[in-house]
């Protein structure tokens, strides 16, 4: 279960971030210039690889208990952030993540931006757009892959999950040459939020010294319980929103 969950979580998180990075890369490449876009992408990948090369081995040297406390706490906080956004989106309080709309905005900005090159790059705008997009989306992937891989003491599997997701998304992106707006990104983010929070809670409590009933099998209860809580909050917020929009105060409804 843990290895499968590790692979799926990293794969899903990485796929979501790769879809977002692809939108930015396509906007830069199709609107401006491909060579500078690829240079920006390559520079970001070098920075990300350096981060993995430095942080990855360092994480494996830390004592497992201390790492689980620190990483579990960080993942729980990070997961809460994902889950909060996913619930707000699913309940209608926040706009859904729309790759087509983001692509349109990026293209519009890229079309009016001034050109010009420097430091061996023909189009500096395309370079920085691709660099920032890939680096920022990639950092989340690196964070998730390293923390999951180190905690499970299986960095190879985490790296495989990330690599497969990047290859799949890049392959589909090359094939369709358009933002992947049909990918159920919001549902995937919801699932990743559930997994990050669940593993964060599991490792955080273990790192603090607690023992889960059933040891690792506790995850079989924590993951569905987290999903149920998140779905419950989503249903509550949807109902509250519908009530508010109908113009009937909830106090009057409960009094009736």
């Amino acid at each position, binding site marked *: 279960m843990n290895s499968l969950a590790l692979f799926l979580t990293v794969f899903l998180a990485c796929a979501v971030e790769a879809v977002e990075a692809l939108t930015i890369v396509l906007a830069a490449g199709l609107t401006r210039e491909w060579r500078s876009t690829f240079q920006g992408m390559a520079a970001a990948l070098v920075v990300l690889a350096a981060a993995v090369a430095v942080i990855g081995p360092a994480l494996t040297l830390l004592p497992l208990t201390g790492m689980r406390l620190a990483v579990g706490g*960080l993942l729980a906080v990070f997961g809460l952030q994902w889950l909060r956004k996913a619930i*707000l989106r699913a309940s209608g309080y926040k706009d859904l993540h729309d790759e087509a709309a983001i692509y349109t905005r990026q293209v519009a900005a890229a079309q009016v931006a001034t050109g010009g090159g420097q430091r061996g790059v023909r189009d500096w705008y395309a370079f920085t757009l691709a660099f920032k997009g890939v680096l920022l989306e990639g950092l989340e992937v690196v964070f998730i892959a390293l923390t999951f891989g180190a905690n499970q003491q299986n960095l190879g599997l985490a790296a495989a999950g990330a690599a497969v997701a990047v290859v799949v998304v890049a392959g589909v992106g090359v094939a369709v040459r358009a933002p992947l707006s049909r990918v159920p990104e919001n549902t995937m983010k919801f699932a990743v939020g559930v997994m990050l929070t669940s593993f964060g809670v599991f490792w955080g409590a273990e790192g603090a010294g607690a023992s889960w009933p059933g040891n690792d099998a506790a995850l079989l209860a924590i993951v569905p319980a987290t999903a149920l809580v998140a779905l419950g909050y989503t249903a509550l917020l949807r109902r509250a929103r519908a009530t508010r929009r109908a113009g009937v105060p909830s106090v009057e409804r409960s009094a009736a």
Partner: protein
Amino acid sequence: MTRWLRAFGAFWYDFVIGDDWRGAAVVALALVMTAVLVHVASVNAWWLLPAAVIAALGWSLRRATAAKP
């Protein structure tokens, strides 16, 4: 240099903690309390962090949606 450090810190704050620092504070407090209960009071408080996370999520969502239609 100071500006760079500030921007670096702001990036990581936004990256890990995001819009609502209270969730992070609740998680940190729950971890400390779990450690205290386990190591000082010998209570296997595995239930504390999940309960705190559920409460923090509900609190954060309530704050985020309170003023919105």
